[in-house]
């Protein structure tokens, strides 16, 4: 599945970023979603994302914690991990971030990057191998400002991966969807 967002800038070129759906594997259960476009994903630096159970637990906990105080909007956080082998990303840990957005105006959002940076430095002290590899949110779908948020996370990690983790219980299929942003230039 692809999602395509056009961003027209003044000038002769138009850029469009779109997220390519990556196949995600969980450590114990191996399922291969049929929609994977293996041809295009193999040219990307990432073509497989392995999500550890701890991450799923943390994200669901984050979401539940926020909904307890009445916030039913999506929650955003950062993913930590490492590269298992070429093209395979291991997401082993995560932490929550302070995120808020305006319901009506999609371009108004706030993610406290100072807090994220500080927290990453603390995580680095206990496990130097875990690096920032991307970010997550609980969706459940892709949003208009995801590209802008992705740009912010790209400051800390050049190949940032977005994983949408659906916090609402559903026993069918995987709760995760991974996306990678691709820059496309066309006239």
């Amino acid at each position, binding site marked *: 599945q692809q999602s395509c967002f056009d961003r027209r800038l003044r000038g002769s070129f138009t850029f469009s970023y779109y997220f390519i759906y990556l196949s995600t594997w969980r450590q114990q259960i191996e399922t291969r979603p049929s929609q994977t476009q293996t041809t295009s994903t193999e040219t990307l630096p990432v073509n497989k994302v392995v999500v550890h159970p701890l991450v799923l637990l943390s994200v669901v906990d984050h979401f539940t914690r926020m909904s307890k105080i009445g916030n039913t909007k999506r929650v955003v956080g950062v993913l930590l991990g490492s590269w298992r082998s070429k093209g395979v990303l291991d997401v082993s840990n995560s932490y929550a971030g*302070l995120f*808020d*957005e*305006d319901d009506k*105006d999609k*371009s*108004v*959002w*706030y993610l*406290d*990057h*100072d*807090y994220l940076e500080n927290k990453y430095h603390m995580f680095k002290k206990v496990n130097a191998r875990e690096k920032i590899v991307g970010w997550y949110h609980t969706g459940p779908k892709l949003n208009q400002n995801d590209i802008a948020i992705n740009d912010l996370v790209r400051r800390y990690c050049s190949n940032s991966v977005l994983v949408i983790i659906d916090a609402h219980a559903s026993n069918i299929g995987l709760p995760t969807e991974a996306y990678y942003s691709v820059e496309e230039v066309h006239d």
Partner: protein
Amino acid sequence: MVLESTIICVDNSEYMRNGDYVPTRLQAQQDAVNTICRFKLRSNPENNVGLLTLANTEVLATLTTDVGKILTSLHKVAPNGNINLLTGIRIAHLALKHRQSKNHKMRIVVFVGSPVEQDEKEVIKVAKRLKKEKVNIDIINFGETDDNQSLLEQLVSVINGREGSGSHLVTVPPSPHLADALLSSPIVQGEDGAGAPAGFASGGGFEFGVDPNEDPELALALRVSMEEQRQRQQEEERRVQVESGETPMEGAAPPAAPTTPKPPVPMTEGGGGGGGPTEEEMLQQALAMSMEGGGGATTEAKPPATPVTTAAATATAAATAAAAGAPQSSARSGGLSMDFSAMTEEEQIAYAMQISMQDCQPKDEAMDVDKAPKAPKKEQPKKEEEQDFSEVMADPAFLESVLQNLPGVDPQSQAVKEAVGSLTQDKDKDKNNKEDKDKK
């Protein structure tokens, strides 16, 4: 000293390349942001400041108390695109909503230097929302002042409402001094006019000669110690006035407190700084011993009490850089006075004479010359007659020293000199008569 979280919104549109504010509008803005930032963080140490750009709305620095962080991200700002005022204000409001302490008041400072192409209705809607959430906004209108004036005025007036005055609009015409214009504006002055300290704008004459930018802790400590010293002096004066009706003798000890210069007072009051006891302390010690030797009247108990209590007060004074030596010396003087009571009267007198002889070097001040002979002279009459104040009073040298200590009396004045001179002549005559008698 308002507890406040402020988000500063800088205009980094293409209009900031303009050089009508020296050197460029962007640079002038950076200086102004620097000024505001320092002021906010100095007025209350718990204040927070954040930074945001209006053109490609992005939060450069989240709410922090560190000036350095704001300045480093400020320098990365480059002109780019056109501003989107309302989005910027909305994002600033979001950021303020997530401030750490809900006690902090919310404030947005916006620099507008390019035309605002926003619908008036939208602007009023945003203003009403900010008013509801009790957010104050300060707008600095520079650059394209004419175009934006009416719109920004409307924005500020809606936020202020009927009675409020928390929000301000400052319009700065093209000049090299954007930052200076702000210093005199209500943005930095605050609502009650208690604004930046006097020497701030000049950049040279700081309070206490210490730059609050370089060493804020030292400046704060000095300020606190000055306040305490002032309070202590006021208490001293109050106590002096209560006791001043009793005996003129007390004039010697307590006036030492108000007349001595301010910063070294904690040192000279209770005891000398660092080295040996000063003349003042020796005088007080001598007085104390003479009082103790005399005993009796309750009024006498007070002068020894005052030197001892001032010593105790300085011992308990807050630790400041200046008063470091005082606690040590005051403790020592406290210890000395204890010893004095243990010694017999004769030993005390001998000790007093010894001290006064030791440290008494010939100086230009008449004071010292008076003190050295004064101490033994005073003790002699004490020995002979216990409470013979009249004779001590008649001693011209002592009188002169007392007069010098009294504020408002000039011992050099003609009248005083004559009076003292006449007394001296009489005393000399008496002395000569006495010696003749003894010879005989």
